[in-house]
């Protein structure tokens, strides 16, 4: 029941872009995006810029499920946090270059996502959100129990930033940003490729009409599990870079508030927009950074208010609203030309 309703709300967002594939505007927008990516650490404090990219990819991974498969995972902190611990442990104990450690963390996230996804896809809609939330909480408790490995309440400290002996990257957050950003861009590219592939088309079909997708011979549950595991891998990639960037992994990364925060970023950016996640992350991370540096303590208050406001008044999110406005403008202009 609820699956179909998800589709009904966002169906207008799922239409193919108004700009044709070969439109020069597409390349211009991509170039502009890359330019922002390159310039970001010049404009804002580099570790904050890195945070934006990490949370952005994390939100994209959630959007891959919510916007393109119709599943709201409220337990993605398990994969982000699980990977940040695993990445940290690999980096500390084996001293490998950090991209290798992040890759390891990402694989670990996919490994724990498989059984969780396998169990969770048995329920749909709102149940899926509740079940994933509960499993993520289980991972949280397990991490808290494995004190010898994870450091319990203290977290995992002193994660090194080994990078092929290139000292600039290892010590300077500014250069590290570019090394980390390369990994995030790979993640975004994977997400984009998944969405714009025959596989992604099936996911959209599963979202819009699971019964029909099943009738067409697609094993709906298998596609959901695959999407879940891919999404977890991307969340793990983001979480791994985040852990390396901060030099520690804490239980906070696994907590349900982290799952909530990433859903907030996704909805703020716009469900089913993919790129919206980066915009949402930009807003939320800079806002939190600003509030924290100005000594304001009730961040939860602000986050909660944003949540309530966007859900009540602004459901298409930033990117979705902008895209709809652009689409409307282009259609209007075409119509006036024809007259």
């Amino acid at each position: 029941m609820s699956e179909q309703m998800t589709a009904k709300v966002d169906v207008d967002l799922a239409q193919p872009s108004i700009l044709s594939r070969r439109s020069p505007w597409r390349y211009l927008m991509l170039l502009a995006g890359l330019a922002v990516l390159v310039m970001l650490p010049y404009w804002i404090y580099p570790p904050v810029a890195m945070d934006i990219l990490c949370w952005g990819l994390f939100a994209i991974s959630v959007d891959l499920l919510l916007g393109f498969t119709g599943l709201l995972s409220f337990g993605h902190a398990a994969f982000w946090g699980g990977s940040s611990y695993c990445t940290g442990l690999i980096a500390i104990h084996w001293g490998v270059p950090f991209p290798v450690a992040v890759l390891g963390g990402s694989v670990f996230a996919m490994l724990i996502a498989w059984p969780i996804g396998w169990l969770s896809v048995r329920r749909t809609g709102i149940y899926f959100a509740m079940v994933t939330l509960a499993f993520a909480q289980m991972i949280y408790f397990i991490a808290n129990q494995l004190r010898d490995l994870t450091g319990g309440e203290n977290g995992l400290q002193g994660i090194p930033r080994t990078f092929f002996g290139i000292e600039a990257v290892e010590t300077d957050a500014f250069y590290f940003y570019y090394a980390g950003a390369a990994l995030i861009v790979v993640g975004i590219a994977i997400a984009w490729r998944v969405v714009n592939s025959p596989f992604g088309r099936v996911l959209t079909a599963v979202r819009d009409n699971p019964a029909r997708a099943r009738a067409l011979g697609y094993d709906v549950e298998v596609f959901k599990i695959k999407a879940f595991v891919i999404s977890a891998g991307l969340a793990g990639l983001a979480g791994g870079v985040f852990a390396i960037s901060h030099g520690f992994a804490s239980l906070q990364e696994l907590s349900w508030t982290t799952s909530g925060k990433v859903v907030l970023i996704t909805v703020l950016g716009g469900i089913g927009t993919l790129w919206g996640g980066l915009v949402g992350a930009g807003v939320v991370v800079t806002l939190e950074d600003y509030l924290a540096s100005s000594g304001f303590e009730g961040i939860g208050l602000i986050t909660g208010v944003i949540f309530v406001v966007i859900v009540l008044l602004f459901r298409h999110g930033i990117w979705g609203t902008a895209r709809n406005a652009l689409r409307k403008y282009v259609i209007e202009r075409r119509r006036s030309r024809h007259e």
Partner: protein
Amino acid sequence: MSAFIQYTLQGLAAGGFYALSALGLAVIFGVLGVVNFSHGACYMLGAVISAVLLAELGIGFWAALVVVPIVMFGFGVLMERLFVRWLLALDPLYNFLLTFGLTLIIVEAVKQRYGVSGLPYEIPAGLGGQVTVGSVNLSVYAIFACVFSVVVCLAVGLLMTRTRIGMIVRASTENADRTRAFGINVTRWVTPVFGFGIALAGLAGVLAAPTRAITAEMGSNFIIILFAVVVIGGLGSILGAVVAGFLVGLVEAYGVAYAPAYAQIVIFVLMAAVILVRPSGLFGREEVA
């Protein structure tokens, strides 16, 4: 053996908190189709309000048992009128997210006002101490909490099965459109039912106040366990919510007693097992996918 009976009693007392809250969650879900994320926060508010009533107005436990549910009923009515109502026509996920946002606000507001350390609340006079049955020492308050929640659950059960209001609520849960076709104004019952569900969470909070640490965060883990409870029981089922509530309370108590390191994890393993064997929950009906 004596220890086992004590753990059972503790489990049933804790299960009472879960059962009462899950009952509220199930009733709200049944009639409105809303999964109320802020249910844990409302449970916390119930406990905090009873502590504040005692500290600032001198209103004791027994009065709080009556006053707090009424206050929370009003709170629920406000919440439904101001926020939840506008999203009822949309996908239930939006109300899930909305109530999540409200949870953040409520928890942070309580944290700002009353700090992060626990508020004091003592076991009310007459319910303290232990009673010895045979060779077993049992906490009087645990017995009270357990009996009280069973009585409330039974009362709600009777309300649901023996009164006209209950019939309307059950019919709306079953099939809101068909109920409307029979000439029942379902919309009129939406607000009171939401308030009623919130009041039950508040009542569970009052009951929990004397034995649990009253902090802004006390509802955070509670709501997740509550979700496990309703997944186990089947969210559509009122009986399922109550039975699963007590079941989870027992599992948790035995977990704390015999495998303290894994007490929390056991609940989620139980949930996984239920999803594996009966995806719709122990008392739930099959979902039409």
